[in-house]
């Protein structure tokens, strides 16, 4: 192992290290900050050149994101004065709110499909991983490789067969279909990750439980699962991030009822000119659930990443 010294780093080394970390943080965080900021700009500020760093905040983007709007005459506005803050924002551009947009629905689709498939892949993955880890499974190594191999092809390579299968099975543009698909894709990841975690749990714990008078299933739920919590949490994060961000399958297999947010957000651009604040607002809201989920499980994730690295 290199890069680790037992002497205290010098002040200069600390400065260099600090500067590198700061630079990396700027590179990764700046685009995020820009997107979040753009969501709060007016349409004019968003496309201003040179770009504006200081601007008057506006909720125009968010209002546009959640509503559909139509043009109205001056007489109409005179007889219908704006009643709420968002109506005022819309009227200032000579428009009126015609109804809610589809963003809320699409966002809910993402939530249902993302969390649903995550739950299923972690649930099935844990059971499969436990079986592979603890029991004599015939052709164990070949089966494990087979499971992994499902992930080797890029989505686009299997897109057409899956599209045809989904069409004939009536799964196109359904929640069940998308959950099924993402679960299938994530299972290989979750079985492999979780098998590693469960392998690290000494078998003696379960044997102790078996001798203490518990059944194999009770030993699994009461002793193995709490021990595997870290692994389950980090696996869940990886599965959710994949299902949440997935674009290729979503754009191909969904168009309405089950369309998720990733294929929907780009369509906002075309609605009324190039509405960058609305796109940025959509992207910001889209980021939130995964961020919250990751922050909630952060402790587990960190432990998960370094799991098994150090012999206890």
């Amino acid at each position: 192992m290199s890069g680790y010294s037992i002497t205290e780093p010098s002040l200069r080394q600390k400065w260099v290290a600090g500067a590198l970390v700061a630079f990396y943080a700027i590179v990764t965080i700046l685009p995020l900050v820009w997107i979040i900021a753009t969501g709060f700009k007016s349409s004019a500020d968003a496309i201003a050149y040179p770009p504006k760093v200081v601007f008057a905040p506006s909720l125009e983007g968010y209002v546009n994101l959640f509503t559909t709007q139509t043009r109205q005459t001056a007489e109409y506005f005179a007889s219908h004065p704006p009643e709420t803050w968002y109506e005022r924002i819309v009227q200032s551009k000579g428009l009126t709110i015609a109804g809610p947009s589809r963003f809320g629905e699409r966002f809910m689709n993402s939530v249902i499909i993302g969390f649903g498939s995550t739950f299923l892949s972690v649930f099935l993955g844990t059971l499969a991983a436990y079986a592979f880890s603890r029991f004599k499974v015939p052709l164990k190594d070949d089966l494990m490789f087979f499971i992994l191999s499902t992930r080797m092809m890029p989505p686009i390579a299997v897109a057409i067969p899956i599209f045809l299968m989904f069409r004939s099975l009536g799964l196109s543009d359904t929640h069940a279909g998308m959950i099924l698909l993402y679960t299938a894709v994530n299972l290989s990841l979750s079985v492999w990750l979780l098998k590693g975690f469960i392998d690290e749990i000494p078998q003696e714990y379960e044997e102790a439980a078996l001798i203490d008078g518990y059944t194999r299933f009770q030993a699994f739920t009461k002793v193995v699962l709490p021990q595997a919590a870290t692994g389950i949490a980090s696996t869940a994060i990886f599965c959710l991030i994949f299902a949440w961000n997935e674009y290729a399958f979503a754009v191909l297999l969904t168009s309405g009822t089950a369309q998720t947010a990733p294929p929907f957000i780009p369509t906002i651009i075309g609605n009324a000119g190039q509405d960058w604040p609305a796109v940025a607002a959509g992207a910001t809201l889209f980021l939130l659930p995964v961020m919250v989920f990751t922050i909630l499980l952060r402790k587990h994730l960190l432990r998960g990443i370094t799991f098994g690295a150090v012999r206890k």
Partner: protein
Amino acid sequence: MAQIRIDSLRKDFGAFTAVQSSSFTIEDGEFFMLLGPSGCGKTTTLRMMAGLEMPSAGQIYIDGEEVGRKPASQRDIAFVFQMFALYPHMNVRRNISYPLISQGMGRRAVRAKVEEVSRILGITDILDRPVGGLSGGDRQRVALGRAIVREPKAFFMDEPLGALDAEFREHMAEELRALHDRMGATTVYVTHDQLEAMQMGDKIVVMNHGVVEQFGVPQEIYDWPATLFVAQFIGSPPMNFLRFEGSVAPGDAVVTIGSFVQGIPQLREGHAGELVLGVRPEHLRLDDGSDYRAVVRAVEYLGTTQIITLEAEHGEVKARVSSRDTVRVDQTTGLAFNERTLTLFDAGTGRALRSAANEEVLRHG
């Protein structure tokens, strides 16, 4: 409390045979040691008795009932693992309560029982601590607590002192033995440490390569080993072996080693060919009057005794003599054997030849 009987027990892992045809009986209330080098099948035997491993053949009886196919949870036994296997997500109290909860015991009864057991083990003050931060000795006590709280028919222990440091091991061994004497429960204890086995066990089974080599009380096994393996495995330093060509017949009370004639316990069987004379270091004397000559190669001072390493015609031997004797390296001396303690082995099969002295022991070993 229970008598445990093992009958022709066998375990194969694929092509590898871990245990072949073991048979022995553990009497009710005995502290029983399964002793052998690593890989000899002692742990596998114990795990089969506990129900953690399915036997390939043979029977296991606990109190006369055949349990070979029963799951561990129905055998009413307790198991102490080498690494203790305390449930890491529970505190000490929960760990000890766990076997009682599975039996559906009421909360108040569980609490009382756990308090009682922790008083016996002296761990009342750590009951509410998580098991993660405990010292090795306390973990050991908690593991014991979890085992005894249910008052099972028998205790099975797989090298329970193996994870402790040497200093503490001695203390824990005494504590364990005292606990056993207090509870009187049948205990089966796996170890590779012959000293531990001699010190704690009522009876010992010595295993090697999946085969039971000998079975009996510690002193019988020490004095009258049934095989060369046992003779060498038990005792520190082990039994000395003088290898020679010769022949003996039933009824002989002497053996001729080269030109030296040595008296031995009267033989009950004969053998011609390669023979081994076994003698414990403490049964050798340095005696200038003896015709069997040897050269002193090394002297180890051990306080009251000293170990003398000598080179003789038929191999290197070690003698344990009083520290008061003055012995110089390179000095040539005579060796006298205590003839009532000698064992003659057939070098080919490794088995001891039956004699007037050991036939009683070998009959049931």
